[in-house]
């Protein structure tokens, strides 16, 4: 292994600019002559818009224009769409209501935009927004997904009677019902997967500029996938043809899914820039982010697990109501369906699974993918069921898992996925050793001596990443293919530029992708640069989400590097008067097989461009190759997290005493970066389990709308984590990579709630397990124990 090659903990190349304050985030950019945009947003969760009076606002100092939903409709700017078609049980398509970027007739959640003010300064725009008069006809609202489809609930979109977007199912109902009919033991749980606000630290932003001479638009935005943004804004919103729209996503300050989607504000910025013929800059403030960023999770689930007399799992039955919010965000429909129910087999060989999912509109912010997207929800269902089943059966939860693990591969689950490789015993065993499971009883006794409760909880999770084979996802309703592209440009002096369709917003691609190139071409890592996030530079790409950039994005680079090597060998052959087939390439050196004749990388790259050693008839000059890589399967990262907690029964305060994570991510490019991804994922999962919960009151007001009310994990809320790996290489991609970005967030909530319920002796501990919740459960557990 070289110091900068695959497997080395190379320090990040991108850090120099971030630690010196030289990053270039969207809000750092100013354009000459720009105006600032500020949105007038609905204070009501559900209301008709009777009248919008902009006259007073237009006369305010510095105001350039005040634009409304009616203006948007007059200019025939199309609405936003959801790009994944889900079909209901009866074969009818999902019922997608219109989503104009500025509401014209009706608002459907607090924060819905009703007008935008453009002014010379942000303060002027904000002041003038106060002067926009909107006459609302307030309607009753519904925020609870479990009540959205009830008789008499307020109707949010006319196209979706009873607010039902789809009622979808997956699996074999008859076989599953039969498994339950003959079950020896059935474990049942009601689960609420709490609603979360992603809260990337950089709020969303958009700057749009119109070039009159070329009738072209440029958008700088905080996007995880600028090409998809361009495609949607061009093809569906109808803003401009793709070749007249450039989207640049520069440094992006975290995404976690929330910056995948195409949002109203970027559409408005583009439209407004063309109308006023000046650059338009919009930067979300945090309060706006809470109201308008797509939220995550928000499931209400009834789940049952059937086991036979030998404690083998024979069936799993799940019914979930998924809150989609007021509008269908870009990929919202796929999250509670194909990213959720397909993972309900967990790490277990389960012969029969049946899942039903009802997706409903409510008067809340849209809900879409948030780190893990569907897979944390599935893992929570499966891992809570298995843990509770073990407790009910009086067996060790680790042993019940082991007994039911998938042990041979490939393994076809009853819910689409074909697991290709894994060793679930290995990660479980390693994690149990790391946390010293066998002596847990002693630690529990010591805690009890001090008047504390102690609990331990497992989560043996699996996820599907490397999203995804295009044909497979197309057959499931995806509106796009999920391949990735790469272009390798080798300069005459031998330095290398990699253009990738992946997008880094914290993942460290500028380092890991360069490690791959350094390893493969034998060139110093300093001579490799990674170009991403600009549709004028990178031809097309699908962006970064679903832990796909290693498994899919880097595989595309490998494919392009294969072509570079093949061509470079031909150049070397002409230089050394040998056949290209006789050239070997190793450590940056081209050698004629069986001889000591060799030329170096820099000589070959220069000769590729000066083209003195071959004719145009023999070989094209230059050294630049591109590739599209379409995966042949999902990848299946899996592992085991174990949480150990100590609880003060007097206060309900939970302290994480110990956390172990053992993950199988396949081959690893940079262990330092992978560990960082695991730490961050666990923190978000701990946040979900202990601290975070987006709460709307019955009037549809978001009462957790700032960092004062919504508990983001702080440093003191978390422990240091013990992180390790096991390895089964992924068989379906050239690097054997599975992906690591979401695992922590997927595994951790179940581990923590399993630990807390183990400590308090009571299964009813909803997330977030705040001190008051845990205190109540502890009192209940102690009461139960006394009876």
């Amino acid at each position, binding site marked *: 292994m070289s110091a900068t090659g695959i497997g080395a903990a190379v320090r990040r190349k991108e850090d120099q600019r971030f630690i010196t304050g030289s990053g270039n985030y969207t809000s750092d950019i100013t354009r000459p002559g720009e105006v600032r945009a500020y949105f007038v947003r609905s204070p009501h969760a559900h209301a008709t818009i009777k009248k919008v009076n902009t006259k007073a606002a237009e006369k305010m100092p510095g105001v350039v224009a005040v634009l409304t939903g009616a203006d948007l409709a007059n200019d025939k700017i199309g609405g936003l769409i959801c790009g994944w078609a889900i079909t209901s049980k009866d074969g009818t398509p999902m019922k997608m209501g219109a989503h104009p970027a500025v509401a014209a007739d009706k608002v459907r959640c607090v924060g819905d935009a009703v007008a935008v003010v453009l002014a010379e300064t942000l303060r002027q725009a904000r002041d003038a927004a106060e002067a926009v008069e909107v006459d609302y006809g307030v309607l009753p609202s519904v925020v609870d997904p479990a009540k959205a489809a009830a008789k008499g609930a307020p109707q949010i979109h006319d196209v979706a009677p009873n607010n039902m977007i789809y009622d979808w199912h997956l699996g074999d109902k008859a076989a599953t019902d039969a498994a339950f009919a003959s079950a020896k033991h059935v474990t049942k749980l009601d689960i609420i997967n709490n609603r979360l606000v992603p809260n990337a630290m950089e709020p969303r932003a958009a700057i749009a500029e119109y070039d009159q001479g070329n009738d072209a638009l440029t958008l700088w935005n905080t996007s995880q996938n600028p090409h998809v943004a361009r495609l949607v804004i061009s093809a569906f919103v109808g803003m401009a043809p793709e070749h007249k729209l450039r989207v640049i996503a520069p440094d992006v300050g975290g995404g976690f899914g929330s910056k995948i989607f195409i949002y109203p504000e970027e559409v408005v910025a583009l439209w407004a820039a063309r109308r006023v013929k000046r650059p338009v800059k919009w930067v979300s403030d945090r309060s706006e982010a809470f109201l308008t960023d797509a939220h995550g999770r928000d499931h209400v689930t009834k789940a049952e697990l059937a086991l036979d007399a030998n404690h083998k799992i024979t069936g799993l039955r799940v019914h979930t109501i998924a809150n989609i919010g007021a509008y269908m965000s870009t990929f919202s429909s796929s999250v509670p369906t194909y990213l959720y129910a397909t993972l309900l087999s967990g790490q277990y060989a389960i012969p029969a699974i049946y899942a039903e999912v009802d997706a409903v509109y409510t008067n809340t912010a849209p809900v879409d993918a948030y780190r893990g997207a569907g897979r944390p929800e599935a893992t929570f269902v499966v891992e809570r069921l298995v843990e509770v089943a073990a407790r009910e059966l009086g067996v060790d939860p680790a042993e019940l898992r082991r007994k039911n693990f998938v042990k041979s591969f490939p393994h076809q689950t009853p819910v689409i996925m074909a697991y290709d490789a894994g060793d679930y015993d290995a990660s479980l065993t390693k994690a149990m050793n790391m946390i010293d499971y066998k002596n847990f009883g002693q630690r529990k006794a010591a805690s009890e001596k001090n008047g504390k409760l102690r609990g331990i909880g497992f989560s043996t999770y699996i996820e599907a990443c490397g999203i995804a084979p295009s044909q497979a996802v197309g057959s499931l309703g995806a509106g796009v293919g999920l391949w990735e592209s790469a272009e390798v440009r080798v300069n005459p002096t031998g330095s290398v530029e990699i253009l990738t369709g992946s997008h880094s917003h914290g993942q460290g691609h500028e380092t890991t992708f360069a490690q791959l190139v350094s390893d493969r071409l034998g060139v110093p890592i300093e001579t490799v640069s990674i170009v991403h996030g600009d549709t004028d530079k990178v031809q097309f790409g699908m962006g970064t989400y679903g832990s796909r950039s290693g498994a899919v994005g880097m595989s595309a680079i490998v494919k392009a590097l294969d072509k570079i090597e093949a061509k470079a060998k031909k150049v070397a052959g002409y230089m050394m008067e040998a056949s290209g087939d006789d050239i070997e390439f190793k450590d940056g050196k081209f050698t004629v097989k069986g001889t000591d004749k060799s030329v170096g990388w820099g000589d070959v790259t220069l000769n590729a461009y000066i083209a003195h050693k071959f004719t145009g008839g023999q070989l094209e000059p230059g050294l630049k190759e591109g590739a599209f890589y379409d995966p042949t399967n999902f990848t299946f990262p899996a592992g085991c997290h174990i949480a150990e907690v100590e609880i003060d029964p007097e206060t309900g305060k939970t302290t994480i005493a110990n956390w172990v994570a053992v993950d199988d991510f396949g081959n690893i490019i940079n262990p330092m970066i992978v*560990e960082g991804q695991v730490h961050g994922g666990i923190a978000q999962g701990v946040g979900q389990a202990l601290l975070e919960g987006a709460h709307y009151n019955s009037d549809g007001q978001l009462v957790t709308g700032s960092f004062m009310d919504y508990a983001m994990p702080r440093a003191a809320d978390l422990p240091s984590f013990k992180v390790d790996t096991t390895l089964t290489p992924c068989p379906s991609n050239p690097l054997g990579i599975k992906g690591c970005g979401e695992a922590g967030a997927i595994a951790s909530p179940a581990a923590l709630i399993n630990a807390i319920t183990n400590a308090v002796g009571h299964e009813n501990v909803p997330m977030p397990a705040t001190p008051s919740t845990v205190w109540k459960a502890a009192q209940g557990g102690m009461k139960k124990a006394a009876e």
Partner: protein
Amino acid sequence: MPNVTITVNGKSHTVDVAPETLLVELLREKLRLTGTHVGCDTSQCGACVVHVDGAAVKSCTMLAMTADGAKVTTIEGLANGSALHPMQEAFREHHGLQCGFCTPGMIMSAVDIVNRKGSELDEHTIREELEGNICRCTGYHNIVKAVAAGAKAMKGGAKPARAAE
């Protein structure tokens, strides 16, 4: 419009500002020092931390006019020319950042913690002292390591030890 005279990273500026202008707005918009970030509107996240007359301040919570006559250090002024400050070096060395957005505030707060609490910082102290800085990427694990190592290096005036691999 009133003006303020302020020394930022060793350079004196006299700038016209509206009375309601925040220090962070002066830094980012007037002086184009965009390393200081804004991550919230309730003084919680700490992305905007700078040093005013040697003490850490959330620059979103201070009016520019109240900084009249003050000496301000931002993340751009922390390094000594091309030589990084030991705390900057420690954040890189220990992978204490991912997306980089909270990083300037984290580093400025970390330096302030060392100035107040000394260079021998235990994990508990570091975690408690970082209460006013939110990171969504790292889970704080490596930030805590970076602050401890950066603190030691600040004392020694040496580079932080290379992290165990």
